[in-house]
C-alpha cells in the first residue's frame, strides 16, 4: 500500500521519464545537450510564472493576471533600459517593483473585498494589458542596452542566464515553501482557512504574501522575456497564465488548495516543454500540439481527482 501511494505521488515524474525515453527512441536529436539547453531556456519564462502561481494555488487562490502583469513589468523595465541611460539595475528593479505592486493590488482587493480571486485577477488581467499599452503607447519599446539584453541572451560559464535564474528561483521557492513559517502557513490557509484562522494565523497577511510573491516572479519573467526578445512588447504574455496554471496542476498542485510542491511544478513545466519540443522535432503541426497539450492537462487533473477520491 505504502508503495502504491509513493508511486502515485511520483506518477507525474514517471510520466515525464517515460515521455523522455519515448522521444529519445523516436528522434536521436532529442537527447543532446544542445537540445536540452534549448528546452530549459524555453521553459524558463513559464517556470517562473508557474512557481509563482503555485504559491497562490496552494493557498487556495488563483491568479489569472500573470500574463498581462508580465507585459507591464516588461514594458516598464524596457523603458528604463533604453541605451544605457541608467545602470542595468534600474530597469531590473523597476520591473520587479511593478510586479510586486500589482501582486499587492491583487492581494489587497481579494482580502478586503472577499470577492473570488478568479474574478479579481480576471479584472487585473485586463487592467494590466491596458496599462502595458498605455505605458508603451501601443508600440514595442526597442533599442535596449546591451547590458540589459544580456539577461535573456547572455551566458555565464557557458550556461544561459535564464537557466541560472530558473535554478536560483527554483531553490529559493522550494526553501520558502518547505523551510519557513510562511510556507507552512500557506499550506495551512489553503488546506483549511477556518482552521488556520482559529489557530492564530493572520490569513489575510498570508494571502497578501502569496500574491506579492507571484507578482514579483511574474515581474522577473517579464524582465527575462523582454531581454530575450530585446524589445518591451505590450502584447507579450497573452495566455501565459494558463500555461503556468497548467504546469502547476500537472505537477500535482490541487486547485482546491492545500497541496502542491515546487519540484512537482518544475516537472510539470518540463513535461510541457519536452512534449512541445519533441513534437517539434517530429514535425508535428503546432495545431495538433495544442490538442495534445490540452489532453495532458485534463488527464493530469483526472488522475489527481481520482487520487483524492481514493485517499478519502
Amino acid at each position: 500500500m505504502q508503495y502504491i501511494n509513493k508511486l502515485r505521488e511520483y506518477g507525474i515524474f514517471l510520466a515525464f521519464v517515460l515521455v523522455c525515453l519515448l522521444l529519445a527512441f523516436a528522434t536521436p536529436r532529442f537527447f543532446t545537450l544542445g537540445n536540452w539547453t534549448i528546452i530549459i531556456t524555453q521553459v524558463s519564462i513559464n517556470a517562473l510564472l508557474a512557481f509563482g502561481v503555485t504559491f497562490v494555488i496552494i493557498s487556495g487562490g488563483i491568479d489569472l493576471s500573470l500574463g498581462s502583469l508580465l507585459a507591464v513589468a516588461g514594458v516598464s523595465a524596457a523603458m528604463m533600459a533604453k541605451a544605457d541611460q541608467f545602470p542595468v539595475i534600474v530597469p531590473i528593479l523597476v520591473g520587479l517593483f511593478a510586479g510586486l505592486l500589482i501582486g499587492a493590488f491583487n492581494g489587497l482587493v481579494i482580502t478586503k473585498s472577499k470577492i473570488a480571486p478568479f474574478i479579481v485577477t480576471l479584472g487585473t488581467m485586463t487592467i494590466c494589458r491596458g496599462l502595458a499599452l498605455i505605458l508603451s503607447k501601443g508600440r514595442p519599446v526597442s533599442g535596449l542596452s546591451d547590458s540589459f539584453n544580456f539577461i535573456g541572451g547572455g551566458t555565464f560559464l557557458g550556461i544561459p542566464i535564464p537557466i541560472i535564474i530558473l535554478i536560483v528561483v527554483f531553490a529559493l521557492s522550494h526553501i520558502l515553501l518547505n523551510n519557513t513559517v510562511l510556507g507552512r502557513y500557506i499550506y495551512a490557509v489553503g488546506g483549511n482557512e477556518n482552521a488556520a484562522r482559529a489557530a492564530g494565523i493572520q490569513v489575510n497577511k498570508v494571502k497578501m504574501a502569496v500574491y506579492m510573491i507571484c507578482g514579483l516572479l511574474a515581474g522577473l519573467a517579464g524582465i527575462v522575456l523582454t531581454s530575450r526578445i530585446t524589445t518591451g512588447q505590450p502584447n507579450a504574455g497573452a495566455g501565459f497564465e494558463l500555461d503556468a496554471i497548467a504546469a502547476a496542476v500537472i505537477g500535482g498542485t490541487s486547485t482546491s488548495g492545500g497541496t502542491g510542491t515546487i519540484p512537482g511544478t518544475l516537472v510539470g513545466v518540463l513535461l510541457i516543454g519536452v512534449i512541445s519540443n519533441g513534437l517539434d522535432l517530429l514535425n508535428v503541426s503546432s495545431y495538433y500540439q495544442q490538442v495534445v497539450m490540452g489532453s495532458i492537462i485534463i488527464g493530469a487533473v483526472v488522475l489527481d481527482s481520482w487520487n483524492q477520491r481514493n485517499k478519502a
Partner: protein
Amino acid sequence: MLLQIKNLSKSFFGVKALDEVSFDLKAGEVHTLMGENGAGKSTLMKILIGILQPDAGEIFLDGKEVEIKDVHQMLNLGIAMIHQEIMDIPELTVAENIFLGREKSGKFFLKKQEAERDAQQILNDLGIDLPLKKKAKDLSISQKQMVEIAKAVSMNARIIIMDEPTSSLSETGSEALFSIIKDLKAKSVSIIYISHKMDEILQISDRVTVLRDGKHIATDTASDLDKQTLINRMVGRDLDSVFPEIHGEKGRVVLKITNLSTSGKFENINFSLAEGEILGFAGLMGAGRSELARAIYGLDKFDSGEITFSGEKMKKHSIQSAIKNGIGYLSEDRKKEGIIPQESIYANASLTALSKFSGFGFLQKKEELKKVKEITDELRLKSAGLNQKIMYLSGGNQQKVLLSRVLLTNPTILILDEPTRGIDIGAKMEIYQLIKKLAENGIAIILISSELPELIGLAHRILVMSQGKQQAILNKSEFSSEEIMKHAIHQ
C-alpha cells in the same frame, strides 16, 4: 396505529446510539420526543426519513412492515420533515416553493396559475394567510416554516416530523404554529414533535416519549406529566466513576469578563476565572455558549463589554492578542475549524506555536519534531508516525493532535468547546485525566459541554446560559442535573 417502531438499534463505531427503542404514533396525534443532546432523537429521526439504516428492528406503517431506504421513499410513504434549518429556494415564490420538485406543467411550460390556485387551496385549508407571489427570501422565519408545512400537506403527508420548530420563532410565531398543528390534527395528520421547551411540550402534546443514552425511558400521556418528572427522566443517571477528583488550589484571577454582549448571540455576561479553576458552560444547543467562547478568543467580534487578562484590559481584541495573553482555544467543530486534513500530524500540532520553532522565519524542524513528539507521547497519541496525515486518524486521536497544538503554546487559560464530542469512551477518559492534570498545574479552564455529567464531574463552578443570557453561576455544592436543567430551559 399509524406508525409503529419496534426495537430499533443503531451503533456507530461500536457506540450504541439507539438501543432497542420502540415508538408509536396514532392518527391525528402529536407525539413529542424528548432527550438531551446525544440521547438518540436525531438518530431515530434520521432512520425514519431514510438517511440512516437501522442495524436491527422493524418499522410498520398501517400494520405493514416498511423499509425506508431514502428520502424519496419517505415522501412516498407520506412522511415529511420540517427541519430546524429551513431549506427553501430564496428566489422562488411561496407557490413555487410549495411545489418545488413537483412543478405543475404541460409538456414544456409551467402552469403557474394552476400552481397558485392549488397552493391557495392548501393554505386556505390550513387557515394560513401567506402572500403567494412573495419570494421566499422576503418571508419571516415563521412564514417560511408555514411554507414548509404547506409543502408537506401538498404531498399528502400523513406524518410530519417537526425538529425544534419554535427554536427561532417569536411567541406569536409559536402560537400561530400551534394553531396550525391543531388544524393538522383535525385532518388526522400525525406529528412527531421534537423540542426542549417544557411548556409548549406539555401544552400541545398528546403523548411524550423520553430517550436517554439511546434507550427508551418512558412514554406517557402528556396530561399525566409535569416539568419535574420530565427533567428527571431526561437526566436521571448516576454519575459514573469516570471523573477524576481534582485537587489543587485556585490562584489569582486571570480572566475577567464584564458585561460582554453581542447582539443576537449573548448579552451581559459577567464572570471571572482563576488559575487552576475549571468553569463549566452549560446550556442547550443555541444558548450562546460557543459564541461567547469565540468572542473571548477573538475569533468573533463582540459589541460591548470588557475582557481583562490578568488585570490588564484588552483594548484591541484579536486572536493574536488572545494567544499572546496565554489563551488556548479548542473549537467544537474539529473538521471545520480544527484539522488541516492534508497536513501531517506534526504540522498540525505545531501550527499555533510555530514561531517558537523558528528563527528569522526559518523553521527549525528538529526542534519542532522533538517538541511535538514530547507532547503527543504525553497525550498517548496513537499514529503510524508524526508524518502521517491527520485525516487518517480517528476522532479521538485527531482531538489529541489539536490539544497538542493548543498546549504547545503553554497557555494559562484554556477554552475547550465540546472536547469529547464524537470520540470514544477510552479517549474521553484520557481527556478527563488531562483536564485534571492541567487544572492541577494551575491552568484556568473554560469547559463547554452538552453532557451534564461531564460538567458536574469536572467543573468547580458552572455558568448556565439560556437564549444568550447568563442564568446562573452554580457552585459545586449546588450541582445537580435538575438544577442545571432548570436554569438551562429558563426563558
